[in-house]
C-alpha cells in the first residue's frame, strides 16, 4: 500500500552523462516493490515545484531493505535528487501502480524487453525478477538510445548473462536505427516460441512497438509514460483512453496496459 518513506540515501552516483542512480534504505518499499511499480519523489522544501515526480523502481535488495532509482537530470526534482549525498533523506511515496508487468507464465516463453531512456530501469528490474523466479528464462533485452553515450544498463545486462541488443539512432553502437528495427527480426527469430514483449520508453517508441506487436499478433505489455500529479488515483490527471471506450487512470489502473487496450491519440 502506498505510504511515505523518509529514506536515507546510501549512494548517489553518475552512471552516464546526466544520469544517476540513487540507492536508499527503504525496507518497506523493498519488501513490496514489484517490476512496474513506481514511486513519487519530492525534493522541494517549499511549494515550488509543488508536485512529486514519478520514478520507476530500478533495483530492489530485499535482504538489505534497499531500493534504487535510475534518473535523468532534467528539472528541479531530479536536480534536487542529484544534490543528495549519502546520509541525507529522500522523501518518497510508494510503491505506486495498480497493474504491473506480468511475467508470461508459459514455461518456454521468450521474454523480450524493449526499453528506451528511463524506460530501461523498470525492465531491468523485471528481467532480474524473472531470473530469480525461473531457471534460465529466455530473455532478450533491446535497448534503444539516440547515441551510444545515452545508452543505459547495457554492461549490467551483459554481465547478468542477458542477451542485450542495442539500437542507436545515429548508429554509434549496435544497430543503426530504432528498437523496432531490432524487434521485428527478433520476433521472426523467436516465432516458434510463445512470446511476450514488455515495453517502456518514450511514447512514440512505445506506440511503434505496440503497433508492430499488434500487427504480428504478439502479446505486448506497455508501461505508459504519463504525468502523474498524485500517483494515488485521486486527481484524475493521468487518464488514458482505452479502445473499449473507458477513460482510466494510469497510476492505479496502470501503468502497465496491454498494447491492444491502448487508444493512441
Amino acid at each position, binding site marked *: *500500500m*502506498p*505510504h*511515505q518513506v523518509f529514506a536515507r540515501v546510501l549512494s548517489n552516483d553518475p552512471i552516464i552523462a546526466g544520469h544517476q542512480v540513487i540507492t536508499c534504505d527503504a525496507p518497506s518499499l523493498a519488501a513490496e516493490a514489484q517490476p512496474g511499480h513506481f514511486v513519487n519523489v*519530492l525534493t522541494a522544501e*517549499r*511549494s*515550488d*515545484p*509543488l*508536485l*512529486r515526480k514519478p520514478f520507476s523502481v530500478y533495483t530492489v535488495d530485499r535482504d538489505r531493505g534497499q531500493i534504487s532509482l535510475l534518473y535523468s537530470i532534467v528539472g528541479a526534482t531530479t536536480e534536487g535528487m542529484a544534490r543528495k549525498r549519502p546520509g541525507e533523506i529522500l522523501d518518497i*511515496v510508494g510503491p505506486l501502480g495498480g497493474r504491473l508487468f506480468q511475467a508470461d507464465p508459459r514455461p518456454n516463453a521468450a521474454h523480450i524487453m524493449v526499453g528506451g531512456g528511463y524506460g530501461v530501469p523498470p525492465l531491468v528490474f523485471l528481467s532480474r525478477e524473472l531470473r530469480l523466479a525461473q531457471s534460465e528464462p529466455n530473455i532478450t533485452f533491446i535497448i534503444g538510445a539516440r547515441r551510444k553515450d545515452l545508452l543505459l544498463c547495457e554492461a549490467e545486462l551483459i554481465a547478468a548473462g542477458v542477451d542485450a541488443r542495442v539500437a542507436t539512432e545515429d548508429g554509434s553502437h549496435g544497430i543503426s536505427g530504432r528498437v523496432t528495427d531490432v524487434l521485428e527480426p527478433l520476433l521472426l527469430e523467436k516465432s516458434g516460441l510463445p512470446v511476450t514483449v514488455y515495453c517502456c520508453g518514450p511514447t512514440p517508441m512505445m506506440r511503434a512497438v505496440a503497433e508492430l506487436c499488434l500487427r504480428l499478433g504478439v502479446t505486448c505489455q506497455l508501461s505508459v509514460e*504519463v*504525468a502523474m*500529479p*498524485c500517483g*494515488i*488515483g*485521486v*486527481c*484524475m*490527471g493521468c*487518464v488514458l483512453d482505452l479502445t473499449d471506450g473507458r*477513460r482510466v487512470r494510469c497510476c*492505479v489502473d496502470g501503468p502497465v496496459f496491454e498494447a491492444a487496450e491502448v487508444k493512441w*491519440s
Partner: protein
Amino acid sequence: MTTPNTAVKIGKLTLRNPIVTGSGTFGFGPEMANIVDLNKLGAVVVKSTSREARLGNPTPRIVETPSGILNAIGLQNSGVDNFIAEKLPFLRNYDVPIIVNLVGTEVADYVHLAEKLTAAGGVHGLEINISCPNVSHGCDFAVDPVLTAELIREVRKVTDLTLITKLSPNVTDMVLIARAAVDAGSDALSLINTLIGTAIDIRRRKFRLANITGGLSGPAVKPIALRCVWQVHRALPNVPLIGMGGIMSATDAVEFLLAGATAVAIGTATFVNPTAATDVAAGLEAYLVENGINDVNALVGAVTQ
C-alpha cells in the same frame, strides 16, 4: 490539560474535527482508505457527481504553476446511479460523515441528484458545486445571486440533508452570492473553488491544458482564499464556512479558522502528501494543546488587526 475539543458543527452535522477533504482531490474513498484512516477525518467530501456519467476533458488536464496547479479535469465521474450502487456501500463502512458534491447544468439536475442521494441513505451532506470553472456553464450559477438563490431554494425543497453551497472566487463580490445561498436555505458554505487561469508552452506556442483554461489551486491561492473566508465570515458570522485553498499544514488550517472558517478542506495537498488531511488534523490538535485552547471553536474568526 485535558484533550481539547476538536468537534465542530456544519449545519446538522457534527464533525469530529474540522478537517474535511476537498471534492475532487480524494476520489470516492477506496484509494485513500488504503492510505489514511477515514475515521480520523471530520468528513469525507467526494468528487463531484453528476446525473449521467461524464468522461471529463481531454488530456493534458493538470499542469504545474508556481506554488500551484491548474486542473481541467472536467468533472469526470461515473454518474449518480453508479455512485450509489458502487461507491456508497464502501463509504457506509466508515464512521465519518459523507458529503457528496453535486454538479449539473440545470436546476433540475441538482434537484434530481439531491433527491436520489437523500433517498440512498448513508449520505450526510450535499455540497452544491455551482462553481466549477472547467466546464461550459460551470460558473453560471456562481456568478449570479438570483440563479444561485433559485437553485438552492429548489434543492432545499427536496432534502433535509445538510446543504453546503460551494462558492467561486471568480466574482466581484462573493458576499452577495454567499448571502443569496444562505437566504435560500444553504446551511453552510464552502469556499473557495479554483481560480480560472491558464498556462502556455512557448516552444509549441500552445496552451498547456487541452481545455485552454483550468482552475488554480494550491499554496499560490491561499492568500486569496483566506481573504474570501474572512470577507464572508465578517458579513455572515453565523454561517458555518468550510475554508479551502492551498492548505498544506496545520499552520495553514489555523489561519483559515482564525479568518472565520469552522472547518477546512484539504485539496491539492493530498497529491503532495497523501496523508495531508490526517496530518493536519493531528497538527491542529497539537496546536490547541500547545496553546492551551480547550475548544477549537474558540479559534473561529478570532483574528484581530
